[in-house]
């Protein structure tokens, strides 16, 4: 009997220890045993995604936006019509009820991205792990991807840039958008927006592998589901929303 108790206690302690090394909050990974070496290509065994609970997204809070801007060196030049935005807060008001709430909008990292379909040179591309990116070396700046994106997720670099960050180079005359902080993800990190949201204790954003049934993202999606924006387009987005 005592053996039994001891065993279950040991298992319990082991599980707590494991859990504490993996995450301190949903979406914030501290450590993973599956770090991808730089020389290893990304694999389609993984699909990075995000779940956003709009009920937890605080109105007026821009922590995710601020973190993204800082991470990618997106300095506003006081020209909102041409300044780049990778992530933005959108306020929604239900027409019939007047109910109001807000959510962060970013590249939805579609499985079948229209931006990739229309790009003449292949500069818009999707990685095997589902992250949609722009290869700034072969983007000719035609902006057809911006015409095609259903989510208004992309920005065109309208002017000379200064103070660029090393991890997220940008280029005047090319198109850009949310990279899902690929430079962090490849080092087993979490996108800056998700980290900031969690750090502010809102916990409205969960990042993880949609193909890993044990990821916090997959567990939450399985439990409560998550909606795709413009699901009618059949793009199978990598970013899902709850509460809309």
């Amino acid at each position, binding site marked *: 009997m005592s053996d039994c108790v001891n065993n279950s206690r040991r298992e319990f302690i082991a599980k707590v220890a494991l859990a504490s090394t993996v995450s301190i909050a949903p979406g914030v990974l501290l450590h993973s045993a599956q770090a991808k070496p730089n020389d290893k290509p990304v694999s389609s065994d993984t699909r990075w995604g995000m779940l956003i609970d709009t009920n937890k997204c605080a109105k007026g809070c821009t922590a995710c936006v601020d973190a993204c801007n800082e991470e990618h060196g997106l300095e506003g030049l006081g020209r909102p019509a041409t300044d780049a935005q990778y992530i933005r807060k959108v306020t929604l008001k239900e027409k019939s009820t007047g109910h109001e709430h807000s959510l962060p909008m970013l590249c939805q990292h579609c499985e079948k991205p229209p931006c990739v*379909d229309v790009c003449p040179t292949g500069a818009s591309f999707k990685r095997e792990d589902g992250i949609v990116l722009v290869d700034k070396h072969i983007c000719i700046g035609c902006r057809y991807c911006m015409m095609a994106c259903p989510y208004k997720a992309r920005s065109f670099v309208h002017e000379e840039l200064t103070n660029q960050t090393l991890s997220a180079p940008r280029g005047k005359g090319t198109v850009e958008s949310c990279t899902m902080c690929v430079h962090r993800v490849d080092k087993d990190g979490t996108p800056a927006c998700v980290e900031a949201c969690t750090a502010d204790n809102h916990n409205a954003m969960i990042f993880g592998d949609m193909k890993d049934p044990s990821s916090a993202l997959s567990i939450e999606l399985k439990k409560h589901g998550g909606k795709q924006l413009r699901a009618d387009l059949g793009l199978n987005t990598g970013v899902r929303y709850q509460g809309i």
Partner: protein
Amino acid sequence: MKKIEYTAIKGQSVAYYGMLAGLGVVMLIGLLATWYMEHNGHHVTGMTNQIVWGTPHVFAVFLIVAASGALNVASIASVFGKKIYEPMARLSALLAIALLAGGLVILLLDLGRPDRLIIAMTYYNFKSIFAWNIILYTGFFAIVGAYIWMMMDHNMYRFKKPVGLAAFVWRLTLTTGTGSIFGFLVARSAYDAALLAPMFIIMSFSFGLAIFILVLMASYNWTGRELGDAVLARLRNLLGVFVAAVLYFVIVYHLTNLYITERHGVEDFILASGGIYTQLFWIGQVLIGGLIPLALIYAPGLRSSRKILALVCALIIFGGLAQMYVIIIGGQAYPLEIFPGYEVSSSFYDGVVAEYSPSLPEVMLGVGGVAVALFLVAFALKVLKFLPVSLADKAADPHA
């Protein structure tokens, strides 16, 4: 019918060189505008992250569409065997190449990275209709160039018909591709319609023929060559049919959208509440570019007036530009519907009609492209035998 005699224009008058110089200055101004936009970045234009394609694209797409239509006259002669169009086939093909070149120059110089043209020519994503268009445009130059060669070289004359047929099929494909640039955009309410491809084809017939008639009349007038009423009467009637057909397609497009409830927003925007876009649609596109030209073409008392015909062509060109403006810029100005059933607001202009006003450099680039096309025509007429010595009724009309 006697053999048609072609000669190059003399092109030695002060007026001719003055025209070339004038067009050269306009091209230079277009280049300066490009330098200004590329040096400072596109924030100095009217274009934004909301209206990503602006006035340069209105001019470029108009010219590219018109280019395909300018080939009409040659196609009718070679493919459909209508003899009266035969003498004008060379000019028709020349104008087609020139207009395409003018349109492409604009498109290229508006790119964020025009210096990367070589990438556009060497990296192809074959799922992109844009990439296909690059091939279609390049191929158009080659095929229509070969077509001109077949028409001009007596040894190659026997190949004129098959090459003419190839050019005809190619240009229909090309304009299908141009229309599909918009037709394939599933997410935007104003686009996402298969009808746009055939609509662009019929628009090309109308715009291209209007430009062709003006160029024909100008080159005959200014070189003192005879242009008979028989040819112009044919072209005028054909133009009337094309203008009516464009209106028909516009009606079908909007009726279809009006039937689809989720498209009511964008229809209300274009047809009723869209401000400048609504005005350009009704006054520019429908009235000036459609109904007035139709009335002038078919009004019994005006049929023989060349000035009226020239006016009709100018109105059609103006209406065509208005139509392109409504399609390209109006289509983007209407907000994307990401959250149906919600009122939306954000710092990124979600849910609001995007503002746009054309900037001077954009207009200069667009007009510069037109100058490129006209310069090419004027220059080519001097170096090669494109123009028949006479298009008088006796020479041109097979029944005379």
